[in-house]
């Protein structure tokens, strides 16, 4: 300690804003910034949403698996869709209730949908029957190819 302070007295003090001092400060600051960066960058990168494989596959359901009066749920782009076999053929709806977005549940006994959150009821055709909703269930287009129902 004493040695270090004696050493400092050997030379005249340089003004605090001299070029050499600022250069040293920039070097130390830069090294510190690089160090912090190498720690922070992997952490921030880790927190990014990861790439999930096979996320946007089309839904494919064989038609002979669809029984009248039953509903089939499937995941489509992270959304639940529901397929209902009616007398006029299959219909596909977005399962999220048009009130606040809970997934509606198919009631086989009454052939309608009811929402578990606030009790909304939709008919098998997606029309509002009762509850705090004004809009019918969103219908999703589909195509039938080689005996398969395809939502893409």
């Amino acid at each position, binding site marked *: 300690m004493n040695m270090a302070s004696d050493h400092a007295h050997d030379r005249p003090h340089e003004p605090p804003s001299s070029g050499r001092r600022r250069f040293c400060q920039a070097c130390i600051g830069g090294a510190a910034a690089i160090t912090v960066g190498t720690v922070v960058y992997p*952490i921030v990168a880790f927190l990014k949403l990861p790439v999930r494989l096979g996320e946007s596959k089309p839904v494919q359901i064989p038609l002979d698996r669809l029984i009248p009066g039953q509903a089939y749920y499937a995941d489509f782009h992270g959304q639940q869709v529901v397929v209902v076999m009616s007398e006029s053929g299959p219909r596909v709806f977005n399962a999220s209730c048009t009130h606040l977005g809970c997934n509606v549940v198919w009631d086989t006994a009454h052939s309608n949908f009811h929402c578990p959150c606030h009790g909304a009821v939709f008919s098998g055709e997606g029309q509002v029957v009762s509850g705090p909703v004004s809009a019918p269930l969103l219908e999703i287009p589909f195509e039938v190819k080689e005996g398969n129902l395809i939502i893409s």
Partner: protein
Amino acid sequence: MSVIRRIYGWIDNRFDVTPELEKNVTKKWVPRTLSWAGCFGGLAFFTFLVQVFTGMLLLMYYKPHPESAWDSVTFIKSNVTMGWLVQRIHAVAANLMIALVLMHMARIAYYKIYRTPRELHWVSGVLLLLLTTMMAFTGYLLPWTQLSYWGAKVGTEIPSAIPIIGTDVVEWVRRGKAISGETLGFFFSLHIWILPAIMSAFMGMHFVMIRRTGISKPL
């Protein structure tokens, strides 16, 4: 810079932190004769902190279930950005921590630093060594690989050497007769909460005692 200084000034005005900082950090000198070997304990603590933070990150994706544990670790390593790095740092820091703890203890033993008034430092230190190895052992099972599985099987077999209660202890540790999903869940809870909580308590004790007695000053 002046912004930081003003924030510091605002806090200092209210809590008078400067004398405490000077006493404990900025004007607390390291004895000149202390060698770099005196850093092993502090470095072991640093690797512990590294593992706490990387562990928090891994916990975002890890699933402690026999059917998904291996897949979730593979997902971290191959799908999460920088996931391989975080997972590797967590595992390498564990090895480093064991090495640093042993080097720290070897130095304390060689210079007889454990003598009065520092007996309890040694006792708490030995308990911390045991807790560290338990952390390593429980963490080793979590990726649910062949090595993990058989490592846990061989490791949990050790208490069976205890007379009379040995087999009961083995069964208690495994949460059943064999290594199963129950073992995985138990080791997971030990690894992420129970052991780190106990370790933190002993570390706090270890550090407070060092501050009270002062570190052993070499000649």
